[in-house]
């Protein structure tokens, strides 16, 4: 036992975390050796962030489930403040600095007294920044710094707490190549000073560049922990995405027809020259990491966001879509990414939520017919088997799956030709998921088409007729999921290879 604590700065054993309805972590165990850089990889929603938040004390692990030993000390019910002082620092993707204060003030935020005033604050800040060879003036305002400089400040802040372990959550996501080189240099310096680092990233190149040990997570479980030298890239990808695909999906739609919609050179701040076609009767899957531009594409097509120019052709003729109402009239349906924030009017009744995209059907001369509205609500609720005591029940009282069905029903009332579904099954139980897959298939087979976005790769691979991969706002590949392997697709989505189409 003694040997272990001296070798490992952090030792996690059998830690579980349950959110209402979801097991976010299941018996997670791994050790971080002193002075090592430990890579942590996994798909979106694999549980990396949850685990880190438990370590920092933002979340509490399930009572009695497992132990966390940090620096020889068992940690229970900690808070972010406590763990910081204990020497465990987290640098989040969205850095936590006060923009209107100086670098020095940020590093010693709330500790000016200990530093004996401003002069002490700036002298000590200088020393810390020098330790990582950082030349930033400590009097400069944080708002004037670049992202990478802000990261340095965060690292200096972590050092000021004499941190023994620094967790970096996707630190490279907003860095340029040169800035990344700087960061890697700093990571090596920290390692030499005996500080351990947990490095969370999607970018496998980085993991292979400088991590000593890699832990792979999937579905809230640790799949494997291996020294980098024993691990191949392919093995890593397979372990990240591979999972036994059971019979949880209906057969995909069969009759793919001619081109229904064509999107030409769609450009926004985040998207670069995106062009693709959508065929009648197909489900088109968009695969990419969060931030790759999946949601941006469908929002732009639907008229929810402004673009720097694009063209949409439906059945060969150009269509102008300036806002969601135009899109609705052009035959689009849209299930937004965030059910509660973007989809539903929570305090309103089921029928009001279902009817809100088809006013034309129950208003005359600007007046509402409540009985016709109820008919629409009842018809769709029945067709989609929405489990609710009545269509007058507030939609907030329904389960996630039934809420999602209300949103789908809302659009089905308009018989959409092109149905966009952004994360349609997020936070929904397995049974309801299957029903939503069947609905998707039905829309496609009735002569429409579905654009499916999902962070769950198996879902996209099993439902889509065709898959487009996206990386940093560009389409990097087009695949037939029936013939292409998950590894191939994942590689294109990670920007590692170019796929067959769109060179």
């Amino acid at each position: 036992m003694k040997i272990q604590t001296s070798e490992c700065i952090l030792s996690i054993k059998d830690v579980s975390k349950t959110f209402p309805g979801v097991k976010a972590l299941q018996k997670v165990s791994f050790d971080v050796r002193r002075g090592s850089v430990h890579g942590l990889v996994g798909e979106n929603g694999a549980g990396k962030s949850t685990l880190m938040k438990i370590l920092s004390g933002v979340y509490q692990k399930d009572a009695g489930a497992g132990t966390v030993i940090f620096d020889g000390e068992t940690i229970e019910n900690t808070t972010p403040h406590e763990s910081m002082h204990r020497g465990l620092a987290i640098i989040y993707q969205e850095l936590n600095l006060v923009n209107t204060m100086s670098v020095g003030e940020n590093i010693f935020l709330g500790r000016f007294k200990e530093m004996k005033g401003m002069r002490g604050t700036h002298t000590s800040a200088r020393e810390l920044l020098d330790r990582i060879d950082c030349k930033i003036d400590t009097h400069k305002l944080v708002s004037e710094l670049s992202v990478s400089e802000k990261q340095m400040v965060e690292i200096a802040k972590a050092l000021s707490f004499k941190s023994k372990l620094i967790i970096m959550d996707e630190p490279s996501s907003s860095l340029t190549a040169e800035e990344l080189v700087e960061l890697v240099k700093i990571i090596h310096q920290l390692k030499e000073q005996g500080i351990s680092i947990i490095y969370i990233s999607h970018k496998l190149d980085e993991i292979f560049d400088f991590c000593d040990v890699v832990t792979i997570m999937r579905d809230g479980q640790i799949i494997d922990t291996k020294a980098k030298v024993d691990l191949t890239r392919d093995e890593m990808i397979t372990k990240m995405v591979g999972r036994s695909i059971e019979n949880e999906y209906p057969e995909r739609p069969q009759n793919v027809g001619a081109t229904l919609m064509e999107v030409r050179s769609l450009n926004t701040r985040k998207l670069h020259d995106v062009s693709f076609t959508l065929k009648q009767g197909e489900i088109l899957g968009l695969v990419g990491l969060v931030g790759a531009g999946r949601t941006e594409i469908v929002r732009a097509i639907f008229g929810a966001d402004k673009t720097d120019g694009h063209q949409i052709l439906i059945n060969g003729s150009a269509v102008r879509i300036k806002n969601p109402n135009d899109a609705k009239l052009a035959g689009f349906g849209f299930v937004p990414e965030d059910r509660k924030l973007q989809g539903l009017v929570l305090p309103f009744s089921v029928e009001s939520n279902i009817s809100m995209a088809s006013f034309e059907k129950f208003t005359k001369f600007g007046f509402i017919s409540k009985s016709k509205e109820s008919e629409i609500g009842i018809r769709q609720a029945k067709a989609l088997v929405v489990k609710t005591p009545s269509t007058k029940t507030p939609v907030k009282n329904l389960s996630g799956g039934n809420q999602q069905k209300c949103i789908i029903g809302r659009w089905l009332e308009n018989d959409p030709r092109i149905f966009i579904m952004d994360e349609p099954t997020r936070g929904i139980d397995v049974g309801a998921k299957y029903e939503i897959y069947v609905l998707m298939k039905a829309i496609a087979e009735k002569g429409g088409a579905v654009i499916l976005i999902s962070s769950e790769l198996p879902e996209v691979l099993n439902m889509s007729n065709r898959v487009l991969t996206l990386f940093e706002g560009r389409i990097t590949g087009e695949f037939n999921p029936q013939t292409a392997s998950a590894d191939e697709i994942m590689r294109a989505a990670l920007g590692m290879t170019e796929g067959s189409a769109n060179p």
Partner: protein
Amino acid sequence: MKKNIALLGQSFLRNYVLIAILALIVVTMLVEPNFMTFANLINIMRQFGPLVMVSLGMTFVIIGGFIDLSVAGTISLVAVVTVTLIDPIGQVPAILVGLGVGALCGYVNSLLVLSSGALTQAEALFITFGMSTVYSAIALMYSGGSTKHMRFLKGDTSVIEALGQGSVGIFSVSFLVFLVCLAVLWVFQTQTRMGRAICLTGGNKTAAHLCGVPVSRSIIAIYTISGFMAAIGAIILFSRITTASPVIGAGYETNAILAVVVGGTTLKGGKGSVLRTVMGVLLVILMSNCLNLLGVTPYMQVVTKGAILVLAIWLDNRTQI
């Protein structure tokens, strides 16, 4: 009708504030017999007219998820403009111009709110607060800072006089105007597509927009209605006293918001009703009347009102969702 009574009952039970105020009234009746005199009840009805108009308009802004602090400035401006225009262009045209000015003030507010992105109530709060001072300043400049008097033209039937003092049967003319406004606005809110669009906008702007609900038009509508109703309130207000000071509207915004919230319309938007607001207005006026009769100093009355607004908002936060 039965349903409406039930609705009022429901809102009553849901609002401890109402119970507290009713308790205040009962106490006043016991302690101060003057409360139930004819003169006092007339007094209450007089205050009711202008405030209820402003509050009905405010109800739409709040249901739409926003807020309008500019009504104080709007009332002052409309009152001053209308009074000074009566001589040169006649009563009816002057009133029409006044209503137009009110609607225009609201329309300008809505454009400013929209151009700010119309994201949160807070932006609307600051914008309309700023516009209130602008409208008040215009009123002051227009009037040269002095109170404007109305001259009656002898022999003519005076519309303003009828509005201020006339009655049809047992109802005063201004009360009939109120009933018409209430009916129109109630139908607008509950029976029309635009009314529903306003509720959906207040309930969830993003979701409404993504469903093709005309969110921007709803925002224009709520502010224009608010400005228009404030103008009606202004005209009723000066028709009784026949003079219009350039600061005549001061304080109406807080009273209107108080009435709407105490009535049970949630500040979170989406839900609410003009009928509830009528209850709220009644209670706000009764309360200040009771406090007056009980000899509470005006300063203390302001404190009480503020405290009740805070309490109402606190309860609103606890009872909804």
